[in-house]
């Protein structure tokens, strides 16, 4: 317990101290300020003054982050729900195989899966060649230089397995008798789904959306690999770039603090609702 306190709570305090600290003018190193009474808020003032307006270079990436993550989560859900539903209810004999295939992406490194798409999406890659052969495009599209759709696709591809499994676990727990009762009482397929299955899986939908969307806020690598252009940079890229630039480290820390303040309510909601659901399940 002490170990966890040391390695979870103290680091966040260090981040705060650096975010509210000053920067050494010569070595460009951040100087943490440990006493909260002496905290310097200039980093935050700087960031907040550059969110909106003409020189608001923080605003567009933040808005973009919300749009991309919203889009990606939505696509994830439309893909993940039917798949989880099918495996949970109609898996039958092949259920073991299907489950193994659903888990498989977990054991393929994230980087490898992104590398696979980098290969496919290159100028002379298979995607361009396929589209050309079908006749959809004449000239090769440069997918990898700042296309928002590529970034969203990458996010979906990367995170969708994390959504399918919790959805599967919850749909699997729904009592088959309830579904049969609904059908016996005259509900159509669609109605059964809408009035029985969907309400029963609502909590799982919310939890799984949070489970994929919250980590996306810290994702900078998908973006770097599949686009690398500032036109698609997101919150994660802002933090990563600031941390990597001498003199801007405390700005990065301030961005981390802002991100945490924004996300903490959602993270707590996820933790509370999930632990309650698992307690109810047994």
């Amino acid at each position: 317990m002490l170990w966890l306190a040391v390695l979870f709570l103290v680091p966040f305090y260090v981040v705060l101290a650096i975010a509210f600290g000053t920067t050494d003018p010569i070595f460009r190193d951040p100087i943490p300020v440990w006493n909260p009474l002496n905290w310097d808020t200039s980093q935050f003032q700087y960031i907040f003054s550059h969110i909106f307006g003409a020189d608001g270079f923080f605003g567009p990436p933040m808005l973009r982050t919300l749009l991309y993550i919203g889009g990606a989560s939505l696509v994830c859900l439309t893909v993940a729900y039917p798949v989880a539903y099918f495996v949970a209810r109609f898996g039958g004999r092949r259920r073991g195989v299907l489950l193994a295939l659903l888990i498989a992406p977990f054991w393929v490194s994230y980087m490898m899966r992104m590398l696979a798409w980098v290969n496919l999406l290159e100028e002379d890659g298979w995607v361009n060649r396929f589209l050309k052969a079908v006749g959809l495009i004449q000239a090769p599209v440069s997918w990898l230089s700042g296309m928002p759709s590529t970034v969203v696709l990458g996010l979906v591809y990367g995170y969708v397995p994390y959504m399918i499994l919790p959805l599967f676990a919850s749909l699997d727990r729904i009592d088959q008798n309830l579904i049969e009762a609904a059908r016996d009482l005259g509900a159509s397929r669609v109605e059964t789904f809408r009035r029985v299955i969907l309400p029963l899986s609502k909590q799982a939908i919310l939890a799984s959306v949070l489970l994929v969307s919250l980590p996306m806020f810290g994702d900078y690598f998908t973006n770097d690999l599949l686009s690398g252009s500032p036109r698609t940079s997101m919150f994660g890229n802002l933090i990563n770039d600031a941390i990597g630039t001498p003199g801007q480290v405390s700005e990065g820390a301030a961005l981390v603090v802002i991100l945490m303040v924004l996300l903490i309510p959602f993270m707590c909601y996820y933790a509370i609702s999930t632990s309650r659901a698992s307690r109810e399940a047994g």
Partner: protein
Amino acid sequence: MSAAQAPVLPVPRAAPRRWPLGWLINWWRSPWRKPRILETLTWLYLTWSIIPVFIAVAFSFNAGRSRSVWQGFSLRWYFTDPVASVWHDPDLHAALFQSLRLAVLTTLIAVPLGVIFAIGIDRWHGRLPAVFNFQMLVSFVLPELVLGVALLFMVTHVLTIIPLGTSGQVIALVTFQVSFPVIIVRARMLSIGSQYEEAAMDLGATPFGAVRRVLLPMLYPAIFVSAVLVFADVIDDFVIVRALSADVSTEPMSVKIYNSARSSPSPALNALATIMLLMSALAIFIGYLVFRRTTRVEGSDGGSALDQLAIQL
């Protein structure tokens, strides 16, 4: 004249609808139809999720430099190329061993620690388990970058005795990974219950002896599964490891792929990724076999082992 005597007219059948898609509508309305649409969708998804990786693996065996034109089979990017193959390029080589080193060290530290935590939590009556559970759930949704940055600052500003590089990476990874063994071992302990231990102590075992000779052997499957999970997960980890790496020599495979995927791609990178894939796959496969075996010996059904693995994730 009662109605019964009226000649029974054949009830005119509903005129068969001659819509071009009539069969489709009948099929849609049939209550016994199989869920073909969902099935197709599922298989489409599975194909989409796996094919790109297969293609990437295939091109690691390409004889040429291209990642999209097949130029014949060769092991050039694994061994034979004297400069750029995984075996001969010192950077790729170092990345491979760094990944293995981190995975082994982290597993060796995190798993015993996790088992101790799990037993401790089980003994400790009070609010502690709830707090612990909460913290672990939060760590699932915490953006890893936040943790990476926080740990980096921690190491560079407070615990300056810990150097960046392997030791920093291992400590950070242990922090993050210790939740796997805790969750899995604790779930297993709850299903075992305390009666075996109590019986052992009634028969004269010391509390420590009861844990060591009765409880621990029953926990082996769970311990093994968590070791496998930790190992495979560390091999795949990227954000924390990158944040805490000191220089090129302590960058493992995932960071290497990130650094060169856009700037200097070559099939050697695919080869590196394939080796990484094989290592995780091997760990999982062995883990699955052992898990199935040990659970079957105990008499629980081994067929649901995969289900359990999935849920425990």
